[in-house]
């Protein structure tokens, strides 16, 4: 079922946790709510679930207003960061819970419940834990049980709050791929909260980037990563270099280099920052074209199959980071302290006045 979030506001005392957020989440998709800690992701997710009451705004599932429905009537599956399994029940009883508490008229027979629970446990590959208690399972196993428990009631939507946040890096990476495959199998409309951009980009069909209780950008992972709407999203989605630039009538200049910026065609001599990702910088050993940016190699770091250079240039306050393959690096023959020349393969220029609001968050 599709989810519609319509102008939701929520404050805690004076603090605005969710600031007029509207979203349309299409049926059957896996959407990531991505943002730094404290940006209001959990609050928004809990409002969608009905665990928290919004101050104003509406929540709709498949066109039906849910704003005044109680949590227990909304038919959502919710997976908590810290699992929230029932400690005093076995794994089987946990997964069966949503079925056994149904009113007698709707409750499946004992045998039907048993079958369904065992199917779900197989789905999460933990059927052998049925008679254990949650305390006897690892974190990753507990979270899979929590997911099976949420799926048992056939929720209209599945909401996951940092489901892998409490797990170590390796288990996290495995589980998120597993979640992706699972979602491809069951296709329930899902929203999961994360502060890890890699996780969001890897797993989701859509990404919603949040900051300070507001939506900064939404789109497919590719759109959001390749075309960040503003400096905040640019920075949040990965390492980025900032070059000082000047924009005049649709052209940005960084030193001798000119970059067309048609979106700023009416700007007159304005200060700007060019955002360029480390792998979008071409490093050259000589200035053949004559307009490349001059730099000095400060350090060379080999990270597995790739090489990261740190370079100093007068057009950036901080050291510039550039990434390339080992093979490309060997071709350049650069050493520490050598001169080098930089050319951006792709960049995005934000005028300084654009930058200010997004960074200070006012």
């Amino acid at each position, binding site marked *: 079922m599709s989810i519609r979030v319509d102008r939701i506001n929520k404050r805690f005392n004076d603090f605005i946790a969710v600031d007029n957020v509207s979203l349309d989440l299409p049926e059957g998709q896996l959407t990531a709510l991505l943002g730094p800690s404290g940006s209001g992701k959990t609050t928004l997710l809990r409002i969608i*679930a009905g*665990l928290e009451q919004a101050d104003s705004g509406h929540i709709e599932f498949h066109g039906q207003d849910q704003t005044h429905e*109680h*949590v*227990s*009537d*909304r*038919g*959502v*599956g*919710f997976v*908590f960061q*810290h699992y*929230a*399994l*029932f*400690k*005093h029940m076995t794994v089987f009883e946990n997964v069966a*819970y*949503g079925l056994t*508490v*149904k009113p007698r008229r709707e409750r499946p027979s004992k045998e039907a419940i048993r079958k369904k629970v065992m199917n779900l446990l197989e789905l999460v590959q933990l059927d052998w834990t049925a008679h254990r*208690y949650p*305390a006897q399972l690892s974190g990753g196993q507990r979270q899979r049980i*929590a997911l099976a*428990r*949420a799926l*048992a*009631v056939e929720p209209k939507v599945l909401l996951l709050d940092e489901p892998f946040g409490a797990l170590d890096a390796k288990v996290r990476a495995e589980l998120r791929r597993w979640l992706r495959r699972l979602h491809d199998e069951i296709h329930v409309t899902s929203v999961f909260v994360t502060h890890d951009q890699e996780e969001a980009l890897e797993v989701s069909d859509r990404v919603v980037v949040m900051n300070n209780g507001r939506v900064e950008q939404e789109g497919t992972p590719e759109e959001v990563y390749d075309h960040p709407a503003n400096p905040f999203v640019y920075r949040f989605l990965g390492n980025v270099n900032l070059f000082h630039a000047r924009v005049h009538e649709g052209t940005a200049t960084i030193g001798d280099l000119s970059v067309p910026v048609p979106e700023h065609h009416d700007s007159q001599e304005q200060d700007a920052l060019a955002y360029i990702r480390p792998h979008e910088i071409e490093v050259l050993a000589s200035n053949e074209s004559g307009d490349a940016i001059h730099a000095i190699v400060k350090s060379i770091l080999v990270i597995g199959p790739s090489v990261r250079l740190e370079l100093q240039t007068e057009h950036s306050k901080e050291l510039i980071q550039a990434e390339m393959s080992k093979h490309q690096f060997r071709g350049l023959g650069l050493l520490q302290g050598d001169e080098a020349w930089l050319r951006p393969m792709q960049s995005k220029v934000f005028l300084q006045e654009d930058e200010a609001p997004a960074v200070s968050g006012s």
Partner: protein
Amino acid sequence: MSELNTSAQATPVQLNRAAEWQRATEEPEWVRRSLIGIALAFLSAFLILPLLVVLVGAFEQGLGVWYAAVTEPDARSAIRLTLLVVAIVVPINVVFGVTVAWAVAKFEFHGKPFLISLIDMPFAISPVVVGLIFVILFGSQGWLGNWLSAHDLQIIFAVPGIVVVIAFGTMPFIARELIPLMQEQGKQEEEASLTLGASGLKTFWYVTLPNVKWGLIYGIILCNARAMGEFGAVAIVSGRIRGETNTMPLHIEVLYNEYMFTAAFAVSSILTGLALVTIAIKSTVEWLEQRTGVTA
């Protein structure tokens, strides 16, 4: 503890590094022995000895005398009244304790710290004062006295008064036991239950209650023990009408004041027996709790 003891006894023999390290972090043998000795001496002097005195006093003139003393009408009335009061007070305090603990642990509201310290009041006020407060409120000369007598209700010098003061005096036990427990549990399991479609009542029954089960049982036991033994406040509000408003502790005092020591001890032995049963149940609960705490 026993592990520590045995390894420490081995120290004089094995003068290796481990032993030296152990001696550096442990108290010398004589300190430990004398501490344990002092504790045991106190326990014997203040618990075991009185217990023996009660039993000897109760049975020294034979079982027949004991039986006659505890089945005599006034004694039977006192026993019945005590059990009746406990049967009313404990459920009241279960409801109260669970409600308050739930409110404190699961909701945010103004004046929460004040409410928590209010719960401790009955422990802080002397029972005699509690008794007087209720006499002033409900007595025939009291604030509500006219209204009560107009409606033909008697609270002071009657069973309702006894129930009220005992309920008041034992109010904190269950709430005190549950509040930290529920606070530690948080709300997540309840929230999970709600999202799974369970009603608030089912959530309470299947999730909240099992999670605080042992704490609740423990609180009930303490509340029960104290309710049976309550003296000061009851002495004031009950009016001490023999065969009517005397609870067991009051009846014992009456017998004692009338130099009927054997009878006093006989009734005491029943009260003590009930206390011992309570302690036994409490230990069993603690033992069970520890055992299930490991597996679940």
